[in-house]
């Protein structure tokens, strides 16, 4: 019985002393929790940032590659450049090509146009609606065409293409240069 009482007293005393530690503990726990939360959220922010940067790089790279390949392929297949609707030596140029690929029945040739409007590269095949080649997530900073003439009917086009990521915060840019001779598939 005595033990019980002493136990009770002990418990009461203990309880008091425990109350004090508990408040201190709450403070320590809160502080620890705060620090941990800051570290973890910082990690998370960095991960999201890194993800966004890698997405910017990926978008710019895949768009640049696709656009350049589409334009150079069309150029190398083309028979000639249609001068009146082509703009050379301009940062946002445009080009019209006369081609023998994918012509309509009973037609000798077809036209393909490439131009930049509102930051996107557009393509129109003759008789079809214009379609945007570049994704909305990127902006075309430069679509510069330079016409090189190596000789009589030896036309080549030097294309400088700059693709920028549309969001200012995660900037990424790629500048590609390629020269394509108009060979009409020979």
């Amino acid at each position, binding site marked *: 019985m005595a033990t019980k009482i002493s*136990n009770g007293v002990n418990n009461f005393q203990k309880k008091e002393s425990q109350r004090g530690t508990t408040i201190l503990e709450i403070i320590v726990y809160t502080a620890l929790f705060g620090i941990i939360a800051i570290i973890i959220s910082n990690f998370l922010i960095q991960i999201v940032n890194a993800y966004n940067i890698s997405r910017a790089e990926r978008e710019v790279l895949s768009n640049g590659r696709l656009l350049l390949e589409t334009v150079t392929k069309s150029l190398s297949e083309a028979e000639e450049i249609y001068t009146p609707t082509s703009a050379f030596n301009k940062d946002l140029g445009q080009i019209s090509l006369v081609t023998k690929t994918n012509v309509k029945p009973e037609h000798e040739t077809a036209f393909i146009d490439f131009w930049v409007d509102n930051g996107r590269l557009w393509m129109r095949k003759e008789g079809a609606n214009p379609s945007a080649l570049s994704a909305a997530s990127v902006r075309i900073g430069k679509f510069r065409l330079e016409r090189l003439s190596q000789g009589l009917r030896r036309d080549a086009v030097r294309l400088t293409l700059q693709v920028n990521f549309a969001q200012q915060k995660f900037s990424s840019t790629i500048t590609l*240069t390629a020269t394509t001779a108009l060979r009409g598939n020979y």
Partner: protein
Amino acid sequence: MQNGNSKLNQYKNTAQRYLNSDFSLLHFEFNRGFGLVEIVVAIGIISVSLFALLQTEIVAIKLLRGEKENLEAMLLAEESLEAVRSLRDESWASNIAGVSDNTSYYPIVENGKWKLSAGTSSAINGKYQRSILFQPVVRNASDQIASSGTADPNTKKIIATIAWGNKNTKILTAYITNFLTSITPATEAKSFFFENGVTDGNLSNFPSNNSGDGDPTQSFTTSTATTTMTRADLYIKKVGANLSDLTLEVRTSPTGSILGTSTILTGSAISTSTLSWVSFRFPDFVTLAPNTNYTLRLRSIPSSTDAWSGSAGPIHWGYQQTASSPYAGGNARRYVGRLSNPNDSGQLLDQYDFSFRIFTLQ
């Protein structure tokens, strides 16, 4: 037994305290040590996994940037091959046959076309150095390219190299042949010309730096036959560093209607050293009537006729001065269309003529 009883009581008390308390945190006091270890381990696991995720993203970014460089380098190497093919298309005899084997060259655009320069290029886009090697080709008895056999002077092996950064390289190899000799393409020939204007001086102040001084012109007269003009060569050189882009027009008179416009030559790619024949091509050929006077009018982009348009120069267009006009078939003029007046036919230079060559389709 008593011990066991007291322990039981202790538990009871504790349990009671839990029930009474509204502080569930008090739970921790019971197994305080374990809670801390648990938290530390949990934080450890979370941190390691988050760190791993972050590293994955960082590696992804690095790889993507590397891939971007690879693509840029690849395209430059392909451009080297395309430049050599263009040179082959122009003329095997004058462009390819004369190159030294196993010597470094690099392609550059000069006066609107490719040419080969000796050595290795300076850094393109601040990063990539390119060079081309030509190698002789030998064929075996069955006419296949082999390591030993008979030399084939009409085939060359080309090795295009791009080097950048810390020993990164990209090498493309291709063979070119002189197959165009078996095709007879259309040819052009020099038909009307004045080549005595070799004086290297600033006669026309073209393109004028923002003063709207207008354009220089040179007229010529056709022969008794109808001809198709494919190209005009002018004897010019670049003086200023920031020369505007140039284009040439064929007009009925200095201010008359435009019959044809040449391709645009990039100002920065015009040669600086001495006066040289620079070709302005008319991809859409210009038909010239017999015994008629036509005018070549040199234009700049932005236009030299407008004050403060941003045009920059000047160029020197080789000329000759004699007491009477040195070229009987036409006249030189300067300041044509000055100060945004399209009807201003400028100043007649009756003692001067500029050098030019007109090529026509044969």
